[in-house]
């Protein structure tokens, strides 16, 4: 073991004593910062992209949409609500905007809307700690196409029966339980949610996401859509535990800055409530538009630099016959490869950490916001990018050992990592092949830079062209690690077999 420490020391001395390689490390940092600046500047005029502006923040810090029409009354303590959702319909989607004009909210439909609702249009019961956007809630609802759901605090979603129309919410202490029933007599529990005890507001609500169609074309992606209105009809509304004498009030909870705030409508006719709503109660998704990971776009430049460093770290030895001196000082060739990998990985990780931290901070400073990424996510971005660079450098080392020729090895590494990314993310390939490319090639590792979250309860094109990787952050990173491990194994076998 102490022999291996000596070996590490030797390889470290080798690396730091070549001035060009040290300069290369500096260049990687510089390029990361430069491109963070470029990406920041290239986005600075578009603070209000789709879903942009100052979005409210949910209880867990996620940026959310919180637009709904609420018919409610106070609920100070324990209690329950029961209702039957008689119908949920949508409006015709607006015409696609012409020449990039902003989509406009439709006029209030003259005739009762009869179009099919959006799949994630929602009508149901809600207990919400307040009417401020982003405040905690628990709700059970009928949706346009996904049956009964129990959702709370924007990000949590539990499926219930597909065909139930009767809904019940029971609040007891800090817990809210949702039930559904097909006939109003036999109830099944859908789910439970924690909601702080104390003053809250409770009632029925309607919300619907806009109608969107996602399209991708070589070189880009677009979403076309606009607001729609959902109309829910309720009857048999019963509340237990409400304040004596309190009546039902109608109120729109919406993003204050939303110029397309939904028209407020609710009619109370005997036992029947008709409520129109738009906007959505859901986590915000990215889609096209600025994202925090774009501040790290320079990692492609840095990747090219570390690929060159990784390749040169071994091929210069071959090209000058120095490898014989190395194997004379250390006959265990696998140990030499391991020491090189450890030293190179450690150096590039440290360089990557400095570079990506700097790039993220600089990019955030220029963009003036962090797109709601939590500190944990930001740490993952920085550490993940550094790890990506380190593993890519080791991958380059292994390819360099296999090919022994610098130029070919650099081309192989850059092409294997960058080209699949370009083909899939720049939407040269259709969505499904692009997803497979990002599952199988080393480019999958860029998933560690993803800040977007796939929310099953939100309709969105979760495809590479819209910035969604098919694998999880560390799952994608593991793909690159797998390639690197395989390349190292081949390199080790060849090292053993070949004459130096």
């Amino acid at each position, binding site marked *: 073991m102490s022999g291996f420490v000596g070996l590490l020391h030797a390889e470290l001395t080798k690396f730091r004593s070549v001035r060009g390689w040290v300069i290369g490390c500096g260049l990687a940092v510089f390029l990361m910062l430069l491109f963070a600046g470029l990406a920041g500047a290239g986005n600075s005029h578009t603070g209000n992209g789709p879903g942009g502006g100052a979005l409210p923040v949910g209880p867990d810090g996620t940026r959310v949409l919180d637009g709904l029409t609420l018919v409610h009354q106070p609920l100070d303590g324990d209690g329950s609500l029961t209702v039957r959702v008689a119908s949920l319909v949508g409006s015709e989607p607006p015409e696609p905007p012409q020449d990039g004009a902003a989509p406009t909210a439709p006029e209030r439909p003259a005739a009762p809307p009869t179009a099919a609702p959006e799949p994630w249009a929602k009508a149901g019961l809600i207990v919400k700690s307040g009417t401020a956007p982003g405040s905690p809630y628990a709700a059970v609802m009928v949706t346009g196409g996904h049956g009964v759901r129990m959702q709370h605090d924007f990000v949590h979603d539990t499926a219930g029966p597909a065909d139930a129309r009767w809904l019940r919410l029971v609040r007891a202490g800090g817990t809210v339980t949702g039930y559904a029933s097909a006939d109003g007599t036999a109830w099944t529990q859908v789910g439970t949610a924690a909601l702080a005890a104390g003053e809250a507001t409770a009632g029925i609500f309607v919300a619907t996401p806009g109608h969107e169609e996602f399209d991708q074309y070589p070189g880009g992606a677009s979403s076309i859509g606009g607001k729609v209105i959902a109309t829910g009809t309720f009857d048999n509304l019963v509340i237990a535990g409400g304040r004596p004498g309190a009546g039902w009030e109608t109120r729109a909870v919406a993003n204050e800055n939303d110029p397309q705030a939904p028209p407020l409508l609710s009619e109370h006719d005997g036992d029947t409530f008709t409520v129109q709503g738009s906007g959505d109660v859901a986590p915000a998704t990215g889609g096209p538009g600025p994202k925090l990971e774009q501040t790290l776009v320079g990692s492609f430049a840095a990747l090219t630099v570390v690929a060159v460093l990784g390749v040169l770290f071994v091929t*210069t030895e071959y090209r000058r016959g120095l490898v*014989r001196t190395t*194997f004379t000082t250390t006959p265990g060739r696998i140990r030499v490869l391991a020491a090189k990998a450890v030293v190179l990985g450690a150096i590039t990780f440290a360089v990557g950490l400095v570079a990506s931290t700097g790039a993220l901070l600089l990019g955030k400073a220029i963009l003036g916001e962090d797109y709601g990424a939590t500190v944990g996510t930001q740490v993952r971005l920085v550490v993940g990018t550094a790890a990506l660079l380190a593993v890519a450098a080791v991958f380059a080392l292994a390819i360099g050992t296999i090919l022994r020729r610098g130029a070919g090895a650099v081309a192989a590494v850059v092409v294997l990592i960058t080209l699949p990314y370009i083909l899939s993310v720049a939407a040269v390939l259709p969505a499904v092949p692009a997803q497979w490319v990002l599952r199988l090639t080393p480019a999958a590792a860029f998933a560690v830079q993803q800040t977007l979250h796939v929310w099953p309860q939100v309709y969105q094109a979760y495809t590479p062209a819209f910035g969604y990787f098919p694998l999880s952050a560390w799952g994608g990173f593991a793909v690159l690690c797998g390639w690197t491990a395989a390349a190292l194994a081949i390199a080790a076998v060849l090292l053993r077999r070949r*004459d130096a």
Partner: protein
Amino acid sequence: MEATIKVDGLRKTYGSTVALDGMTFTVNPGRVTAFVGPNGAGKSTTMRVVLGLDRVDAGTALIGGRPYRSLRTPLRHVGALLDASALHPSRSGRDHLLWQAHSQRLGGKRVDEVLRLTGLADVGRRSAGGYSLGMRQRLGVAGALLGDPPVLMLDEPFNGLDPEGIRWMRGFLRALAAEGRAVLVSSHLMSELQDTAGHLVVVGRGRVVADTSVADLIAAASGDRVTLRTSARTEAMTALAREGATVAVTDRDTLTVDGLPADRVVVVLSGAGVPFSEVAAHRATLEEAYMDLTRDAVEFRAEPTEVAR
């Protein structure tokens, strides 16, 4: 550890080319062993095999009884100089030694010592890319000395040295051997090793042609020939031939006499009244002895090749 290199029955082919063909010899401590042969005879390949760099089809190569690859800190057992140009041009000479030292758990102090030993103390911190061939050879020797090893193996260390450098290298090698080390030095020019090598391993076409001490070799090559300088060439030849000697003309006034010792030549010439200015026992140079050997080697090699076809 025993300071020896033992090479036994090495065999290696590259495709249809036979590089090593049963190479067998031993290098013993306390003397410089010259490893000579024409280019392509297998000298460098043998050294690479000894260092565990190249694989062989058959045979073993042991350093002090152990294969090179089993050594934990090999530079403390063997110092080797294979290719003095194997340097990263932008790394300084000192850093080039430093990483080797670190791999053996040695420090910068030892590096500075060997730089001083090889006369590179002043240039150690300059980029090795700017070194002359002679400086690179010295740097290579410095690397070989890092671990203060009992066995040294140098491949063509005289290449690129100026006369001053050649003299330095000869003295240095002798001194290392005098310290009790086993020193193996390859060369394709025998003259470089004159007065340096105590033992000789001559190779041709991948196998050992002669394995002998230098003294024996020169004695054998010299025979009992006598060099004679005289102004009366014809008379001298007649007188000596009458006594049974074979006489050859080497120059306008020089004859080489074979078959009579020097003192008999003086008696014969004096008795015949032939004037002469010098009579000396002929001493072959190492170069001549080597040429004799390799000439034999070529003849010796020609036959089996014919048979093989």
